[in-house]
């Protein structure tokens, strides 16, 4: 399960490559990544859209919330359609809560939590999970750590036990710490082979020079090299405290049953007592530079240049989040409906995909426009992107564009209600950011309430393309002369 709410997601899959593992099947298929008129009757595309059938967010009575006496929140969403369950625990601190010099600690801790817990060592835990066909995931996000276990409901006892072991009793063996560190360092080195990864790293560093957000989620070679199992153990103890966490279940399990299991495995009677959660490490926000800066990461062998135009954004809890999202959907967040896609792909054939979006985090995360094109076209691409961003400031979303963007967001929200696991993920996300419990119920109305004046203000106040970081990964020899005049150019090695 993701810690990010599905309702925040735009169609990022349009042009992204699969991750390192499971490459084979991903490589065997190619997506288009755009991602008859009837006699005597007007075609459906000429008619106004019928009113959206608004499914309830959850079925009546299916959702239960309880708080245990140690402060742990318990959430369950019953859905008996299939004999499977998704169980999990989310703690409200993540990679963003440590100093830049400790970058990578949250990811390292997550990995070590999978390498042995309770009476089982790393291999024993892996076997216990695999034997019942279950999936164990431990994820470190910027603002939260999440453990989920998915499997068949007939294995509920084993699944609950695994969840409790991993959350409460990870072993943090020193030998596993050595192995996990080696793997994390190797992963960072491999990231240099992936142009999109390099572009993301360089953008973060340019926008947040002294902030944790300026380092990769998985850390840097310097910060990871000094990590050991004891560091992970201490971080785990600070983060996984009951009054800072939520335990949840969706699927084929009743509310009373889950409440009882939660009390037994995670309540104060299990020895998990309330403790103050670690404070956030305060970090300075992104600076808005006086002028654009250009960073070129040199990969002489590439034929394609990866381009990011980045700047500071807004936080997850910002009052203008929905207006900003609607404005962004018009600009570059809604696939073929967006202005940038029309400009750089449909009209110019410069790229296979372009996407823009805010990274909504506890503190304002970056706002990024991301694309790629053949290296000799990089200047035309950058100019089109900048003029597209300026365009939405000078010519803000029209009534018609805003109506389409709203219908896009509301429709996406409707799709996200298909599975109980994705609904629950959204509810947990609200908990992470301390947002009202009824936020999903009111979401569609809040989207519809946004006015043209709001998206106009969002475009005017939040975007500053002439003072952004322009990051390009590709052959510097070709790129640097083409990027002249945009701002000072810095060339870096991967």
């Amino acid at each position: 399960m993701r810690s990010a709410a599905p309702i925040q997601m735009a169609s990022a899959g349009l042009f992204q490559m699969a991750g390192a593992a499971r490459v084979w099947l991903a490589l065997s298929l190619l997506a288009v990544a755009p991602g008859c008129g009837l006699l005597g009757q007007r075609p459906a595309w000429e008619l106004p859209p019928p009113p959206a059938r608004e499914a309830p967010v959850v079925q009546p009575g299916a959702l239960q919330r309880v708080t245990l006496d140690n402060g742990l929140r318990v959430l369950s969403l019953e859905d008996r359609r299939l004999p499977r369950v998704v169980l999990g625990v989310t703690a409200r601190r993540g990679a963003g809560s440590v100093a830049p010099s400790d970058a990578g600690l949250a990811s390292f801790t997550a990995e070590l939590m999978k390498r042995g817990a309770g009476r089982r060592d790393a291999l024993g835990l892996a076997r216990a999970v695999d034997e019942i066909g279950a999936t164990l995931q431990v994820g470190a996000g910027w603002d939260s750590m999440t453990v989920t276990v998915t499997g068949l409901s007939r294995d509920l006892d084993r699944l609950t036990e695994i969840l409790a072991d991993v959350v409460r009793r990870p072993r943090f063996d020193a030998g596993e710490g050595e192995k996990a560190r080696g793997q994390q360092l190797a992963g960072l080195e491999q990231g240099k082979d992936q142009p999109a990864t390099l572009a993301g790293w360089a953008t973060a560093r340019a926008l947040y020079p002294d902030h944790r957000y300026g380092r990769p989620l998985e850390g840097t070679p310097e910060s990871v090299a000094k990590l050991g199992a004891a560091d992970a153990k201490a971080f785990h103890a600070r983060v996984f405290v009951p009054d800072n966490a939520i335990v949840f279940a969706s699927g084929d399990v009743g509310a009373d049953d889950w409440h009882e299991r939660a009390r037994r495995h995670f309540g104060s009677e299990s020895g998990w007592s309330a403790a103050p959660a670690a404070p956030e490490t305060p970090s300075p926000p992104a600076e808005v530079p006086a002028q654009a800066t250009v960073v070129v990461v040199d990969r002489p062998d590439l034929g394609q240049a990866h381009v990011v135009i980045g700047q500071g954004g807004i936080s997850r809890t910002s009052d203008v989040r929905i207006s900003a999202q609607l404005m962004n959907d018009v600009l570059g967040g809604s696939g073929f409906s967006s202005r940038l896609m029309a400009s750089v792909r449909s009209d110019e054939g410069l790229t296979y995909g372009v996407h823009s979006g805010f990274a909504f985090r506890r503190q304002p995360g970056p706002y990024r426009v991301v694309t790629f094109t053949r290296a000799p076209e990089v200047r035309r691409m950058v100019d089109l992107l900048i003029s597209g961003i300026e365009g939405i400031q000078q010519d803000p979303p029209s009534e018609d564009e805003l109506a389409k963007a709203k219908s896009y967001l509301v429709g996406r929200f409707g799709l996200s209600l298909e599975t109980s696991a994705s609904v629950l993920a959204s509810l947990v996300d609200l908990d992470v950011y301390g947002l009202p419990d009824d936020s999903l119920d009111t979401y569609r109305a809040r989207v519809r309430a946004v006015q043209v004046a709001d998206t106009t203000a969002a475009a005017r106040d939040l975007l500053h393309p002439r003072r952004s970081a322009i990051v390009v990964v590709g052959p510097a020899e070709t790129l640097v002369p083409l990027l002249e005049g945009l701002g000072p150019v810095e060339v870096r090695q991967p």
Partner: protein
Amino acid sequence: MVLGIAWAAVVPMGSQASPAIEDPAERMRKTELENGLTVLTLEDRSTPVVSFQMWVKVGSKDEARFTGLAHLFEHMMFKGSKSIEPEEHARLVQARGGRINAFTSRDVTVYFEDVTAESLPLVIELEAERVANLDISEKTLASERQVVLEERRLRTEDSPEGQAFEAIAALAWRSNTYRRPVIGWREDVEKATVQACRDFFQAYYVPNNIVIAVVGDFDTDETLEQIERSFGRLEPADEIPRNPNRLSDQRGERRSTVHFDLRAPVLAVAWHAPAAGHPDAAALDVASQILSAGRSSRLYRSLVYEAQQALYAEGGYWELNEAGLFYAFAGVRPGASIERVERLFYSVIERIQTQGVSAQEVAKAKRQLEVDLVNGLVTTHALASRIARDTVTFGRVRPLSERLEAIQSVTPEDVQRVIQTYLTPDQRSVVRVIAPPPDGPSAPEAGE
């Protein structure tokens, strides 16, 4: 020609089911229109969404003159028709929050829309419009060609994994059209013509070569009527051209090296394996699980966890309509030896060949496959894909009970036998994607 209204046949699914898992596909209705279009409908009012998928039985294996044409054409399906502007189809669906995309493989081309229920009528009309009235012009082809070339750079030319994948297919399949990359060779994409696209469209985008699957929140009768109205007037083709399936014997190991500026080399190994529907398929699936599924799997344990030589390591059975491969794929850790990773791969396989697998491992693999089947029922999209894929590949939907039975009947001896039979050194093709040597641009390639 306008074909009659009534669908020719309504075929109910078989009623066998595993006692443990109810198979929603049992409620599926299969309808064949008079023009040969197959429509699979599975109404499920418990979900607020509906997945519409159009599976066209044409892939890169069917291309004649230009490689990459099936995929390029898939892109052209978004470039407008008589009544729809370029990309307007995708815009109309996305403006309602719908997910729309398409993909091309060696065997099929698939178009899909996942939408909330009220948008299904729009989707049906849009799909029928482009199949009936697609408009391919020099101008739209010129710009989309560039888009596809960017896709090729992204996925293949600038990607170590993409390089490995392209090279291993070309190496393992000498004579079969499966050897070509789905995205095509660059020169072919650059040269493909409007006329070639039009001919391709006429030959393959005919109702008797298409399967439509609709799963989710809709009314079956209403939807079938609409599909009949929209698609029923399309003319079927008398004959659909197919390339001969040329599978030549492999006599000895084949090796190839690709130089690329990288830090983590990629190793790809492939062995010939049977095509989809072979009696050994279930045993090969169990073998895949034992090798790759989860952290207790043999490849993860050996290469990633114990030897710490690989970032990831996986192997599995890849079944196509006319052939198959069993593959092994690893990302080599920066600084580690690719020779050692290759030896470790073979020692994992040889161990199974000589010592077999335990009953416990087989039981674990079966359970994983069972859970995968259940997970495939979670979304309307996954369910629609399953019924359409089965229909395209096997002419019917295999009930879950049948698949579970096939999995349950696999023995440890079966797993050992298929690994012994198929994963032999002389049936092996090996690709290494490695950094070029510091002195000079290329090293001589190892021969066969």
